[in-house]
């Protein structure tokens, strides 16, 4: 049993405290959070909706009539869930008592972990949104550093003193450099990159743990010993700002700023609006990519692609669409239906016929589940085959995706990246499995494919078209490199 004092001391210094912090000071916001998590879990139950991307699961939902519209959207409109995430974060940030940018970032990181656990791990867009807001916060914090008395840094140790010194120094330096850890910032050797010397690593986050390890190496072993001796976080909480590893924020993040809240909210509002006219911005480019008389091949069901094609059709472009049915979910059927409904000349083929028909195709439009940092693509399982076929016939492969699908991660595990195996029930009927022979067979039903960047020619996003090789720069513009590490 920990003393209540430390219980109250659940201040924002560690993302793992966030839940307790909310519980102590903002029960209402906590309730909001829980609400959202439950809804995420339900999204989880609604036919693997979130992770099935626009993949067939939603198509089946169409067939199932009784299901409620909201759940129906879950499978299909990933933009909805994303928007809701931002709404939630806005309402929490807006109404909680955080003091400094550093605290806010910690809060966000904690929330990120929560959401990730609640189902974000299957919907990367959620994490992306959190990161973007964190980036916005950093941005605001950097924009106008103030000379206010740093609240938490003064608490302890020469370390803090050093920071004070640095604060003046940094005041003069241009802050653009503090953005990300880059060569130039290495040059400036900003303290946030190395003041982690005495920090400890509360849990999980491999990245930080090892930065810290690094320091225990470069420094002598006693430095580390002192840190690990620190032991309990409830103690660490008081002396935290300097001893805690989140002290790796630049020092001026620890200054109280009154205008910060306002500006952050504005930034969030921008993100909201960007999400709102996402499809509009994408579809504006439709005419540039879809020309009259073209034969376009697409795979399974994707809201984005669907709207994209319809937009082109609305511009009186006459073109033909070939839809792969996308087994085993057969989202392609629903796709074809809605396309034909829009008066588009539509053909449905079974996936195996893709290669055969590819020779006649002018362009391949692929849906996206996530866009990776190296320009690779996570798309409904089967798309890799399509992309390869296209490459073989040197048919350009265009991917239509909103920027919120841009994930700051690399394909660590190749095909397993961001992938998931769902129930094999769509591959084989369970009731057949009593057969002792069949029961020994493995049935695997992956949801996604990883498509390497060299198979993709163009990403059409709501902020324009990009080559895969350019994606990393977009990342730098959207996320701070310190926030890249996945939420636990």
């Amino acid at each position, binding site marked *: 049993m920990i003393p209540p004092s*430390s219980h109250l001391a659940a201040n924002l210094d560690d993302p793992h405290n966030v839940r307790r912090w909310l519980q102590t000071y903002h029960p209402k916001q906590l309730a*909001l959070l829980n609400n*959202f998590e439950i809804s995420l879990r339900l999204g989880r139950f609604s*036919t693997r909706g979130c992770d099935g991307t626009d993949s067939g699961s939603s198509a089946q939902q169409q067939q199932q009539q009784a299901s409620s519209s909201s759940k129906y959207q879950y499978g299909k409109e990933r933009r909805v869930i994303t928007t809701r995430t931002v709404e939630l974060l806005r309402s929490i940030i807006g109404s909680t008592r955080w003091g400094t940018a550093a605290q806010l970032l910690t809060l966000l990181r904690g929330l990120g972990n929560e959401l990730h656990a*609640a189902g974000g791990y299957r919907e990367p867009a959620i994490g992306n949104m959190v990161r973007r807001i964190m980036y916005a916060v950093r941005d605001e914090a950097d924009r106008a550093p103030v000379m206010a008395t740093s609240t938490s840094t003064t608490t302890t140790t020469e370390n803090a003193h050093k920071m004070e010194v640095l604060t003046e120094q940094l005041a003069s330096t241009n802050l653009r450099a503090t953005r990300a850890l880059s060569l130039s910032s290495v040059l400036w050797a900003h303290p946030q990159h190395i003041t982690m010397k005495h920090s*400890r690593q509360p*849990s999980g986050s491999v990245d930080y743990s090892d930065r810290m390890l690094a320091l225990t190496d470069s420094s002598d072993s006693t430095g580390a010993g002192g840190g690990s001796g620190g032991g309990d976080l409830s103690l660490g909480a008081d002396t935290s700002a300097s001893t805690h590893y989140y002290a790796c924020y630049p020092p001026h993040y620890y200054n109280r700023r009154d205008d910060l809240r306002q500006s952050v909210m504005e930034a969030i509002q921008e993100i909201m609006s960007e999400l709102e006219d996402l499809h509009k911005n994408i579809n504006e480019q439709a005419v540039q990519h879809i020309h009259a008389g073209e034969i376009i091949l697409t795979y399974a069901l994707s809201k984005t692609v669907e709207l994209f094609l319809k937009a082109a059709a609305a511009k009186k472009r006459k073109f033909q669409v070939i839809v792969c049915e996308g087994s085993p979910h057969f989202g392609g059927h629903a796709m074809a239906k809605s396309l034909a409904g829009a008066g588009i000349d539509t053909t449905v083929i079974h996936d195996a016929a893709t290669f055969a028909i590819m020779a006649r195709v002018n362009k391949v439009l692929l849906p996206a589940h996530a866009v990776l940092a190296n320009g690779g693509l996570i798309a409904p399982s089967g798309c890799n085959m399509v992309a390869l076929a296209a490459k073989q016939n040197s048919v350009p492969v265009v991917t239509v995706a909103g920027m919120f699908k841009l994930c700051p991660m690399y394909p660590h595990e190749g095909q*397993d990246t961001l992938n998931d195996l769902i129930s094999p029930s769509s591959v084989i009927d369970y009731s057949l499995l009593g057969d002792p022979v069949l029961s020994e067979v493995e049935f695997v039903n992956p949801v996604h494919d990883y498509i390497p960047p060299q198979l993709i020619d163009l990403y059409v996003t709501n902020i324009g078209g990009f080559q895969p090789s350019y994606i990393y720069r977009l990342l730098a513009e959207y996320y701070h490199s310190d926030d890249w590490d996945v939420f636990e």
Partner: protein
Amino acid sequence: MGKSAATTSSAASSSYGGGGTHPASSSSSSSANDPSDNKHEQRLQAVLLADTFTNAFYPITLEPYDGDAVNNNFNTTISYNTTNTAGAAAATGVQDPRPLILCPINNVPLLHHTIDFLQGNGVEELFILCALGAESLERYIRCHAEGGGGSGSGSGNIAAAAAGSGSGGMKSNNFASSINSDGGGGSGCANKIVWSSKLMISIVRITDCTNAGDALRELDRRNVIKSDPFILMQGDVVTNVDLHEAMICHTQRKKKDAAAIMTVLLKDVGGWGLNEDDYVDDVNEGEENEEDDKANQGEEKKDENDGHHQAPRGTITYHGSSGNFLPPLRSSTDDLLLALDTTHSNRILLWDSHPQNANAALPSIFFHENSSNITVSRNYLDVGIDICSPDVLARFSDEFDYRELREQFVANCVSEEESGLQSARIYAHILNTSRGEYAGRPLGDMRRYHQVSMDLLRRWCYPLVPDNYHHHCSNIGSGGSQVIQRKSASYVRERHFIYRDVMSTTKVGAGSGMDPTTSSHNRSHLGRSTQLLGPLLLGPNNSIGERCLLQRSVLGPNCTLLDGCSIVDCHLWGNILVEEGAVLEGVIVCEGAIIRKGAIVERGCVVGRGCIVGEGVRLREFTRITCAAEVNDEDDDDYSGFSDDSSNEEDSEDNDDDLEDEDEDDDDDGNEVSKSTEATSSQKATDVITNHEVVGKDGIGRVYVPAPSDEYDSDDDEEEAEAEAMELMKSQSIGYDMKLVYQKWKKLQMVEEDDGFSLDERDSDEDDSMMYMDDEWTNDDAAATNMRSSVSNSHLGDDGMQITGRQKGVDVVKELRDICLEHETSTPVENLRIELNSFKFSQNATYADCCTGAMMAVMEKIFEESAGDSIPTPGKLVGSLKKMLDYWGALFNSICMGMEEEKAIIYALETMALGPVEGKAASALMQEPAFRFVLQTLHDQEIVNEEAIFAWASERRGEGKDSPLGSLFWQKPTQDFLEWLDEDESSGEDDDDSDSE
């Protein structure tokens, strides 16, 4: 401190309602599409029957359970005197056993899956009905609940509760089936626990309830269930169903028809491998009894196949099993036969889960409805989740004798409707397996436990896969203000469904950050030369030596496998040491057990908590060893009503609560004595005797021998009973070949088809014979003929339908007679009829029984009225009989559906007449003309018509003049009467002569 936390979080949850107005929450909640939102403010409630009270998991569920065994090492797991359960121990004499629902499946206690499932479906208030191990359950929930009080506050309540349940426990021992309201005293108050700010859990102790029926009645008595619908869930379900659709359907149906109060979830798992020829002959049977309109009991009997010949009335499509194999998810005792009215949204018309029955009956009226389209199928598995309206509870309260949730309920509803009463309708919602909806009942028996666990690893139950646990359980205890070292294993998926734990021991709440090196060092060690074959689940902190073979197994936390051991189809629950070269196949090993060097444990074995299998020992297949003390199987008899599987225990259920005849009583007393002795022995058995010849010199643990179910009465030989029980246990163990079970059933059914004999029937006959026993031995014969007659005029052993769900040992006719006797002749006879009806259905009796009972009652009354001990003269007798019939005639007319009943009446007379010689009735009826007059009166009153009499006559004709049965028939007056009848028959029609001859 725990309290403070609880209060804060409860505040949070309360304020959530207000928060609902907030844009984000409103949007999310609307998106949450949990039914609690899209209707009135009532929070969605759920009831969880925490315990399928089978003994399938004995002895595991007998072993004491101390919180989380993960943390104690080998020694402490087998230490019994844990202080925190002292209250429970004091109350029940044995230490609080492990609740079934806390058994881990794939390293997570089933409870978590269940709660996650309910919470995910928007349930906000959960009532856990728990009888056994309620204390440990509550303790567990408390220390895992988010806002739940720390051990401090928890233990206080536990102590109180334990005391309460203690008294309850005593009660339950004394009159096991007392369902009176004061049982509440025993079942301590339901105290709420804040699991998460979205979910309140309250544990309802139903220590004195003996079956699901009682539990629900108890719940109804407390009258806490408000939400319509609410979810009624068996404790042992693992599923990923999205209840939303089912609930919508249910509510819509309810709107249209208030009687649609229950929706049962079913899953198509494929039927038993029946090959078609089984049906061919059935079909013929169907045809012929299609023709003969003397279909008995006025209720048209149908085999599942003669639907093919029902074309004019509606079509029955038979869903044959797909292939010649056995559905893996079936329990060894469950052979569910369902009739669904697919035109009326899968209304359930027939529910028969008795493997013995070769036949089933379906009321004809459902065929009269035009365009009714009835599907009869045995492919469905009862998921164990119902969506109910509160009326269901009320109904259970009315029908005080419902025991289990399904069969009687369905049967009753159907037959009520048939007899024109306003009835409840029960519908089925069939899982959409193509959308990956899965459901399994892992805790029904160990075979299914293994099956389901493997299915989970094979990702059939998709979101419920190990690599999601970390996320699933993340809300459990996270942010809780108490400091508990929670091992949250986070698994990574590797090829071939192999799941391995990666690092992460995290402290919850105000946990201190941990040393990164340790955090990452935590990945369990795995010898490079060890061979892993999926599906496989390796928990945290395992260490596996070289040259091991692991296949289709689950390893809990802190398991140590030394070099060269092979683990196949096993479940190691944690803290287990397996030494070099040990071979385990198809074994469940509980916490803290040790398998010594070179030991071989064969399929189907269970190694109980803290047991030790000695070095080089070979444990024969299907042996279960445990450290738990002997326990009397009184409990599982009482509770077996819960389980859908344990139908045959259930038959044997209330030997002890119904009034019985003397000999029955005294042998039952014998039982009591033995049981009490067992109980005492179990109480003083703190340390267990070890069968060293089995587990070896260095071993610990005794062999668990399943207690024979009482279905075999005193006259049956014990060893047969034990053999039966052992067979049952084997069939419930991992690695048992289900083909055997199936063949056994086929044999049973063959037997039944040959001579209409089934297990149940034999019992029932014993019952009948029992009932006649005190009168005279001859009637035993009568009963036999009764039975034979039923065979003769319908090949369908109607008994299949009659007896199922009949409480064993209930002397039905006697009961009926008493009902009639108690009936107030002042009130309209209609009431009596309804009363009889309900009893008939509850006991699944026949109208014939009713008639017999009623007739006897009438005669009784007559003899009572006839003054003093003077034997009424035939004239007086007939006179009073006439008087009686003025009133009772209506009843007989209503319940005499046909031949069978009328004959039953005659038999009843016979029985009376042949009663004890000194008996008034007997002497009165044996007087020369008496029987004839009575018979004639009945005939005149058109209660009994010629056919019945002739049929009776034709049977008796065989009897010798002096044989007791013949005696009445050969009486002169009877003969005259028969001739007279014969004449005015033949004057009418000629073809009936054949009958008369």
